[in-house]
């Protein structure tokens, strides 16, 4: 199983969890598995076989878009980070 870090804005979809586990030897397989285990979270980042354009996925610190996209290999020991942009700064 691979550890997937859940960004704060998506934790509600993961029942508040900061990390979830999923399995798969590629990013695609991992996200398919994630969607089956935690559907609310899965559909936010991965829909209709595509990665949502506003979410970055890093496998061991590398953006999968700069590697093999959804075919990027994932190991059990990998750390996967899901990362949408955060705006927050000043705050009213």
């Amino acid at each position, binding site marked *: 199983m691979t550890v997937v870090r859940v*960004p*704060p*804005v*998506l934790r509600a979809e993961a029942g508040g969890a*900061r990390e979830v586990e999923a399995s798969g030897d590629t990013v695609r397989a991992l996200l398919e598995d994630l969607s089956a285990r935690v559907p609310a979270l899965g559909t*936010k980042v991965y829909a209709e076989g595509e990665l949502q*354009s*506003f*979410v*970055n996925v*890093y496998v061991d*610190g*590398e*953006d999968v878009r*700069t590697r093999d996209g959804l075919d990027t290999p994932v190991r059990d020991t990998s750390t996967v*980070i899901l*990362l*949408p*942009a*955060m*705006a*927050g*700064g*000043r*705050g*009213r």
Partner: protein
Amino acid sequence: MTTYRELLAKTRGEIDEIDARGARALDGAAWVDIREIDEWQEGHLPEAIHVPRGNLESRIETAVPDKATPVVLYCASGNRSVFGAKTLNELGYDHVYSLAGGFTDWKRNGLDIVMPRTLSPEKRTRYSRHLLIPEIGEEGQLKLLDSRILLIGAGGLGSPAALYLAAAGVGKLGIIDADIVDETNLQRQIAHSLDTLGTPKVDSAKRAINGLNPDVDVIGYRERLTSENIDRILDDGWDIIVDGADNFPTRYLVNDASVWRGIPVVHGSIYRFEGQVTVFKPHEGPCYRCLFPEPPPPELAPSCAEGGVLGVLPGIVGTLQTNEAIKLAAEIGEPLVGRLLLLDALATEFNEVRIERRPDCPVCGEHPSITEYIDYVEFCAR
């Protein structure tokens, strides 16, 4: 018992002296001024580096690492440099020369000298802890004093940035913020205080900055940054932008303008316990659009007002941004270019991911499709 005169004469016989003409004919020589700081400040030879006689042994190997480099030492009249030359011979420098007649003869013969830019005694005291760091020193402090840094927002991220940049001696600080200080700000926005409740944040921040360092020239822009005013504000001349905006349209607007103008942006963003920091250096590293080509849908983009934020988090992220800004201004270290630092304050964990330029980036890519301002509010509402 040997007198000074005798020792000088004896030592002079053991080292090589050179006149100005001979010294100027040397190829690739290092010129080392071994006089005291007050003498150096009254003018020195072009190209010279300053290593006072008292620190010659300890600092020369840093100043002139290659012992095969010819070294011309000079002092005021050519006596102290005799002893200095002997020392460098003992340290193994192959070609050491003492400049006969020193700086006095050089100047008397009408040869070129330069007047160094130096810090006043007051500034020397104020920034003494910077001056002690070899990577900053007087040269770095002068760069900080010359730097012009623009802060987007005088809130959670902008507050620590404003205070530490002011303390560091940044010459000119611009602050863009349309808001007024309210009570909910004081949980984290440390540039403001009970005394400034109800006043514009730019005025409140200016008061805090000048209370800390009255030499900082503060330019307040009490307005919300838009496509209409950004060019006017950037035309005032800024070397670095510290982005602490609270919304996506401003982030993309600042990105596009900074890429077109080649101004590095120190990016920080926060939410609840987590922060992100990076440096977008136009054309050398990725830009914001390379990192996030599209903003998340509005339901996944809550502001701190909606989602909350731990008060100290902007302090941590804002000071990390300040560190990057100071490094850029002083031209030292390894800025966070192409690296996104992720901070989890709850776990006290830092992670770093690599970010790369996208060849297809619509703004900084090979064939840009966005070359003028767009409707950023509409872009972020899709």
